[in-house]
């Protein structure tokens, strides 16, 4: 199952011209700077905006086709929407907010499933509260639950974290990760934060000035050297899929990924757990010979597959199939005589590990 989207709309001078596909599995991020047209795209998908031309099909079910004069109204689309500002109904308590969409769903989820989602989002203790008495993070979780309980076939999330401070963000992110890993609803996640995208998304649709600039898997797209040109964002580096292969006696945990092994500080997850690992381009050094007597734990053999000069030089590396990016100074690149095809050693100074809950390989 997948969602196909093609839109064309003119907002009096701002043209939206987007075509992409949301895969059934996992989270697709709609990523781009503010004002790129991301919210307009999700509004059109939800049915809150009628584009001049377009076609949207959810697993073959056409909800919009301007050529065939089809416009399924928002209430009949079965597309969940989590708004930036939560939009809880102020005259209903949390439970009635949650039941609003659930009552109106053509196929209601069972009481058991209802309880499961309430539990998953940690809402048990909030059920009898009024929205005015909730914190920002709690409101976000209720909005998420309310949308999910309407049993949507696609869930749209429009920057659900943007209005929250860092602490509240950290409170909600794990819930979003759980949802990604447990809920069977494809999600389209709008964000202009690369951090959120690299942590949550499986696929990325890059939107710039109303157009789709690139799309692909998060593992490929972010380590693409042209990515920062296309996104207008600073280059990110690498997102890797890894799993815990062992906990060592010296307090380190060994992560296995296609290109080798990474050593990180002790993780409280059993061996076999799947994890998402992020390595920023700034945190990778290069050496032409294998360094010995070095404090860094992670030295990986790699082959240079591409170079890109800017104010600094970005070097793309192939590490047993995994793509890494190193950002070094231009003078270092020249001194080492780096060129595509060269065998080098990548020294990884720092690794960020994101837990993926409940997924074992």
């Amino acid at each position, binding site marked *: 199952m997948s969602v196909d989207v093609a839109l064309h709309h003119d907002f009096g001078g701002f043209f939206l011209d987007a075509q992409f596909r949301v895969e059934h599995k996992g989270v697709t991020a709609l990523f781009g700077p503010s004002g790129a047209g991301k919210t307009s795209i999700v509004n059109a998908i939800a049915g809150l905006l009628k584009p001049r031309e377009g076609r949207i099909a959810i697993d073959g079910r056409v909800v919009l086709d301007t050529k065939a004069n089809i416009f399924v109204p928002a209430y*009949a689309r079965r597309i969940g*929407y989590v708004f930036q500002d939560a939009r809880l*109904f102020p005259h209903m308590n949390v439970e009635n907010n949650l039941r609003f969409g659930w009552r*109106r769903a053509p196929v209601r989820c069972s009481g058991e499933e209802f309880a499961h989602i309430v539990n998953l989002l940690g809402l048990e203790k909030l059920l009898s509260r009024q929205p005015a008495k909730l914190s920002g993070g709690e409101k976000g979780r209720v909005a998420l639950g309310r949308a999910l309980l309407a049993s949507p076939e696609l869930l749209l999330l429009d920057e659900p974290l943007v209005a929250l401070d860092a602490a509240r963000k950290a409170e909600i992110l794990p819930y979003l990760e759980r949802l990604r890993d447990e809920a069977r609803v494809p999600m389209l996640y709008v964000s202009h934060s690369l951090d959120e995208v690299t942590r949550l998304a499986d696929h990325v649709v890059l939107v710039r000035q109303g157009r789709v600039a690139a799309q692909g898997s998060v593992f490929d797209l972010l380590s693409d050297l042209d990515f920062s040109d296309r996104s207008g964002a600073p280059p990110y580096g690498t997102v890797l899929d890894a799993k815990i292969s062992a906990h060592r006696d010296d307090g380190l945990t060994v992560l296995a990924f296609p290109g080798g092994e990474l050593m990180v500080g002790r993780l409280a997850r059993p061996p076999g757990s799947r994890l998402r690992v992020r390595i920023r381009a700034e945190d990778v050094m290069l050496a032409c010979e294998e360094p010995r007597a070095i404090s860094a734990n992670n030295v990986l053999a790699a082959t240079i597959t591409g170079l890109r000069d800017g104010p600094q030089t970005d070097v793309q590396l192939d590490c047993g199939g995994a793509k890494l990016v190193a950002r070094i100074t231009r003078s270092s690149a020249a001194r080492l005589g780096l060129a595509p095809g060269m065998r080098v050693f990548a020294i990884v100074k720092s690794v960020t590990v994101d837990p993926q809950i409940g997924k074992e390989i």
Partner: protein
Amino acid sequence: MHGILTAAEMEALLLSLRVSIVAVFCALPFALGAAVLLAHRRFPGKSMIDGALTLPLVLPPVVVGYLLLLALGTRGPLGAWLLSNFGIRFAFSWTGAALASAIITFPFQLRAIRQALEAVDGGLREAAETLGARTLDRFVNLTLPLALPGLIAGAITAFAASLGEFGAIITFVSNIPGETRTLPLAIYSALQSPGGGLEATRLSILSIILALAGVALAEFAQRRANRLTGR
């Protein structure tokens, strides 16, 4: 109460309450309907209709009463038709007083309800729509409950204004004791009769107490409604 008020005073009080309650409840559905149209719909001639609906607020009440007399008096075109076909008579009847009050106080209700409807966040309606709620469903379960405080405030303001209505009532349905002599008309009548100063004072005090009770009631209702809507 009977010990304090004379029979005539009691009569005027109860009549005033009856006229005002009927006026408010009869005008409410029309005010709600007009408010929905003006708040949420765009149509040609909207500003004209908007202006026309607030006319009773700016027209002299005597003029409104006279127009009603022309149209609905027993020899007026509409009045004759209603009387011969349905046996409904507004002229010289308390129902006529209620009708006049309803028309005069209609803009109070319209304005309050319209403002309350416009204050309901459109984003909430969008959220409700994505959760499967159709237009009527959204109105009944979201917009209306959220606009309830405004609706109640409008009704109470209209009720208070209706209690004081004089010109339109006396012009349209005259000043008949027990039928159309509401409190303001009773005060006027007392002042017209020699030695009626004390009577006028007593009725005025009664009116003031009624007005204060209305204000207190409005405050109470507003608080209850605010709690209900989570503000």
